[in-house]
């Protein structure tokens, strides 16, 4: 799909989050906006949106859910007809939910992501990472994104959901079309149809053959206020878990691998101080936060001098907030033992990422396992890395040699 893109003349009034340089490295643009007189930029592109870049503003927006609602959370508008037809009622609870329903939508999925629950995935994830490394270790070169990062979250979430691991490449294709190639409306429609029909079949199968100790079975049978939850809720949660659990996490793993390939001193620091891992993961998440979430303004409001109208889209640029010098000293430097790191890679407030513990585990295990087996590696060509952008930022091709 080709398109003539009008060049951006003024970031503050006409930013374009899909402009290739921005996609490759949004941080200089974030900085320019953040330090200007107008730290909340505006654009009319893609039906218009606002882009706050200061930590304080992004967090305030995340906290004020009555003004900044979750009826739309994607960085671009829905494709035509998305809310209609047979699957029109399927959203992605709890990410698309507002209070009061948000409360029970979120409550029902929290237990599967508690620290105790996700700990069960440690060994399996480690085994998977080792297997992926086995396939490349003798070749002296690999694509840290396509050969490694991209295979990990999809298999972990498939295990959590109890769906066939053999369908990995289908899931990957659907997630890519749903989230990464978000400007392609036909692709989004195709992905949505496939995802919903797939989970409808999974639900139907479990009705005939209920499974023990199975996330989808349990979800189907959960009651809220004495009634079994609606099927749209089950489908919506599965939809969310698949899409949210995959693209985000592999982007984080990929970015961390890209970083580690260029910083032997950090690899050494972790080898010499393994106790540093938890703090190091948080710092890498701060620096390379993959996700931007949107909100829809509920009513006309002046926010930090910006005249926002009901229905306006606001992009909570968590990656921008994480580099705000007002909040973080030396924000553009990875300091693996950073003490004060109240980052918002997982957001903030009632919608803070429910899967964060699982994400942390996957990122840590992916990095630990690689660094154990392949302690020295470097980028083949720094200029030949391709990036995905828009909702989620991360490398899609990242060749390393060892």
């Amino acid at each position, binding site marked *: 799909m080709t398109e003539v893109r009008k060049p951006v003349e003024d970031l503050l009034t006409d930013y374009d989050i899909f402009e290739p340089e921005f996609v490759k490295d949004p941080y200089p643009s974030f900085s320019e906006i953040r330090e200007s007189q107008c730290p909340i930029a505006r654009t009319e592109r893609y039906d218009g949106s606002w882009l706050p870049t200061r930590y304080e503003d992004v967090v305030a927006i995340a906290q004020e859910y009555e003004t900044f609602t979750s009826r739309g959370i994607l960085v671009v508008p829905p494709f035509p007809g998305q809310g209609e037809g047979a699957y029109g009622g399927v959203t992605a609870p709890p990410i698309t939910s507002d209070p009061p329903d948000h409360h029970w939508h979120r*409550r029902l999925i*929290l*237990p599967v*992501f*508690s*620290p*105790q*629950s996700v700990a069960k995935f440690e060994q399996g994830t480690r085994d998977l990472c080792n297997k992926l490394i086995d396939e490349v270790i003798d070749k002296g070169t690999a694509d840290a994104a396509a050969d490694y990062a991209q295979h990990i979250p999809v298999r972990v979430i498939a295990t959590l959901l109890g769906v066939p691991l053999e369908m990995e490449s289908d899931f990957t294709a659907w997630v890519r079309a749903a989230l990464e190639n978000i400007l392609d409306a036909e692709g989004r429609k195709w992905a949505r149809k496939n995802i919903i029909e797939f989970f409808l079949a999974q639900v139907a199968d479990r009705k005939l053959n209920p499974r023990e100790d199975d996330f989808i079975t349990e979800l189907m049978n959960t009651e809220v206020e004495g009634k079994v939850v609606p099927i749209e809720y089950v489908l919506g949660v599965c939809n969310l878990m698949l899409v949210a659990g995959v693209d985000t996490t592999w982007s984080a793993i990929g970015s961390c691998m890209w970083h580690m390939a260029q910083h032997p001193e950090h690899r050494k620091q972790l080898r010499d101080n393994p106790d540093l891992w*938890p*703090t190091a993961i*948080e710092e890498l998440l701060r620096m390379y936060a993959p996700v931007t979430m949107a909100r829809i303004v509920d009513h006309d409001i002046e926010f930090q001098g910006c005249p926002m109208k009901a229905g306006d889209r606001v992009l909570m640029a968590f990656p921008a907030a994480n580099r705000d010098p007002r909040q973080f000293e030396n924000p553009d430097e990875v300091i693996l033992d950073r*003490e*004060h*790191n*109240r*980052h*918002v890679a*997982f*957001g*903030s*407030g009632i919608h*803070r990422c*429910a899967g*964060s*513990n699982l994400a*942390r585990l996957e990122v840590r295990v992916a990095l630990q396992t690689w660094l154990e087996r392949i302690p020295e590696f470097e980028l083949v060509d720094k200029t030949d890395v391709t990036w995905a952008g828009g909702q989620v930022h991360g490398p899609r091709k990242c060749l390393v040699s060892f």
Partner: protein
Amino acid sequence: MCAIAAPEVFGSDEMGNATVLISGDIPAELQAKTRRAESNCPERAIVITD
């Protein structure tokens, strides 16, 4: 996150919400970890009183 930063001090319930495991004063050797957990809590849910 606090449970990772200071596992002797913070646990979590089945919802993943933090719980405090120590009653009374935090022992000296756990204070640095506890302060780090506090300064990194994204919800500012931890309050330390000296």
